[in-house]
């Protein structure tokens, strides 16, 4: 459910820090009818233009706090709320080049009552302005 709403088509772009471009970030939502504690987010996978991003190069931010995916696994209090737009940052020197990029997102969440661990995917073309 909500698969096609996972990648948001607003609020994305290259990320600057100390005068240089350190990566690319976009907003993402959960494909789920409720929010979930961060320890139950098993993986957030990103593929850009066919190239998978390494897990350690992904950062997750909500409400001003940022985690690595490994750190999220032991975050037992904070949550990714229903429909909340989180920021997914891909660390990559120089970010993305101007033009169209195919971004694929997969989210794997551990849901207590399900007899499987679902992975849900969305793909969008995002455009970095020149």
């Amino acid at each position, binding site marked *: *459910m*909500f*698969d*096609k*709403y996972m990648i948001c088509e607003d609020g994305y772009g290259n990320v600057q820090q100390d005068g240089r471009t350190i990566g690319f970030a976009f907003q993402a*939502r959960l494909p789920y*009818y*409720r*929010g*979930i*504690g961060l*320890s*139950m987010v*098993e993986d957030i996978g990103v593929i850009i233009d066919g190239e998978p991003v390494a897990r350690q190069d992904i950062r997750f931010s909500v409400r001003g706090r940022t985690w690595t995916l490994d750190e999220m*696994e032991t975050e*037992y*209090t904070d*949550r990714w*709320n*229903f*429909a*909340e737009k989180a920021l997914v940052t891909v660390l990559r020197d120089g970010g993305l080049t101007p033009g169209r990029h195919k971004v694929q997102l997969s989210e794997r969440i*551990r*849901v*207590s*009552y399900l007899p499987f661990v679902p992975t849900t995917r969305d793909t969008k073309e995002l455009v970095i302005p020149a």
Partner: protein
Amino acid sequence: MSNYDIKRGVSLYSYQEEYFLGTKSLEDLIKVSAEMGANGIELISEQTFPNYPNPLDQSVYDNWHALMAKYGTTPVCHDFMLDYKKYKNRPMPFEEQVASCKVDIDHAARLGCPYTRALVSIDPNVLVACADYAESKNVRILIEVHAPLHFDHPWIIRHAEAFEKSGSKYLGFLPDMGMFLFKFPPVWKEKFIRDGVPQHIADYICKAYEDRTLSEYVILEVEKMGGVGPAIGMATTLRHNAAFEPKRMLDHMDRIWNIHAKFYQMDEDLVEPCIPYDEIIRVLKKGGYKGYICSEYEGNRWIQDAFPVDSIEQVRRQQEMFKKLIGEPAATAA
């Protein structure tokens, strides 16, 4: 004088599409529900309230009660989750599960809900351990009996036996009407076809469902027909759904205190084509059911890839159907 009292309600779960997209606020949803006469309100707090089950500001509760008063609606049920898989490599300890349920019982009480819904996979011993606390808060815990489970399944029988043995009047059942699915829903079939299931395989699966063929045979047959990916996915839905009999509720009427009126589509003629609501209401009347029947629309996920979703119209149609089936007096013109 009838011995039943079937009241109409709605779970805000029904409006998840509009709430997700932010096109409707909590107040909008309470207002439209009241306008339909669906005066009992059920909710999944982890959907409705950001950050729940972490502590919420008192203002959240004040606003909730203000909305109930403004629109003349009644809190019915807070659906809780209990994330017992919170820790990746170890189970949640029993006492922590009990403590987690007590947070939900407190929350239900603060919302004014007489019932709180427990998911069907929760250990009955956890619920029994919470029974006295639930009684102290005057909140009844209801395990949701949801397909593919049903009232004759040993897991549910185990719950029934545990509840009886406890002697508590604060443990009961909340049946989800999706377990009485007598026909493969057209909106599911159409979605699977959009996802690439060949028409002849989709037709076969629907026919096999109506023939009540065991799911494992259907999956094997679809494999033999060359079905892959979404075709296997469509066949696998038969593992999770079945046409159980509404009359199986009759043995448990003394512990059935709320009902999820699951539906996948309400057509313009005000009929749910796959869930036998005429029979369901007959059984509830026969069983002397006194409580709410809460709309639970779950069609959005089956159409949102291709069509706009109008959850409110879907719920309105189901509520109109209930008015007729329950036999409410028709409104007279002013």
